[in-house]
């Protein structure tokens, strides 16, 4: 049975950096490819940024919970904030002609593109993503 690791960070860039350093070190120790570590880093950045900005609204008293579970084949990440949640189905398509010039709204698209599986909790304040090591 795989072990889950827990990181709880404040809603600050310093907190995100700390979590990212731990997770990237673990991915590299497990021999994840450069392509896979790029994907994990990008998806983690987008998920934690969304949690801090849209979930916790930069409230430093609110925390972001990051759980990860990994082996040589798969890296699973869960990011949870203390926000109200949202419906990811209602996020506009940033590639649609009417949205292509908007300077926001691409984070979830990148998470979907770079990770092999991604799932939001029913409330929408938690996302779980899996990257396979190929």
């Amino acid at each position, binding site marked *: 049975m795989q072990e889950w690791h827990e990181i709880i960070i404040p809603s600050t*860039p310093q907190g995100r950096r700390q979590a990212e350093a731990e997770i990237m070190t673990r991915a590299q120790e497990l021999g994840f490819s450069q392509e896979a570590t790029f994907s994990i880093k990008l998806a983690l*950045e987008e998920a934690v*940024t969304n949690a801090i900005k849209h979930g916790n609204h930069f409230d430093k008293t609110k925390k972001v919970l990051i759980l990860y579970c990994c082996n040589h084949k798969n890296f699973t990440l869960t990011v949870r904030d203390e926000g109200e949640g949202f419906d990811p189905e209602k996020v506009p398509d940033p*590639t649609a002609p009417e949205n292509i*010039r*908007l300077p*926001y709204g*691409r984070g979830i698209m*990148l998470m979907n*593109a770079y990770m092999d599986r991604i799932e939001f909790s029913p409330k929408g304040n938690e996302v779980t993503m899996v990257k396979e090591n190929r």
Partner: protein
Amino acid sequence: MTEAGGSQGRLAVTQKSGVHVVHFLDRKILDESNIVELSDELFDLVEKNRGIKMCLNFGNVQYLSSTVLGKLITLNTRINEDKGRLVLCAIRPQILEVFKITKLTKLFDIVDDEATALSHFN
């Protein structure tokens, strides 16, 4: 011909034949604080040089986030408003893929290298 050069906090700016060539000094453009700083520097350059011809060289950049994409879109819009032009170049394949996935290759002028970018302004 190099006309002038200089380094601001997070950017190195050189003028070549009337084109402002901008290199990012950070390899990872992720942190909100870094992004705000470099965005301020880029927009300051645009405000001081109306109608600017700008070549953004990504050769040093290994990572960026969707927040940076948003700043680049706003920068491109601002430059176009003043009848200037922005060309992006030397983007690593993994970073270029980010532009392709988000279909921003349709919005930006993206070329392989700096020499090609400079020729685009002539």
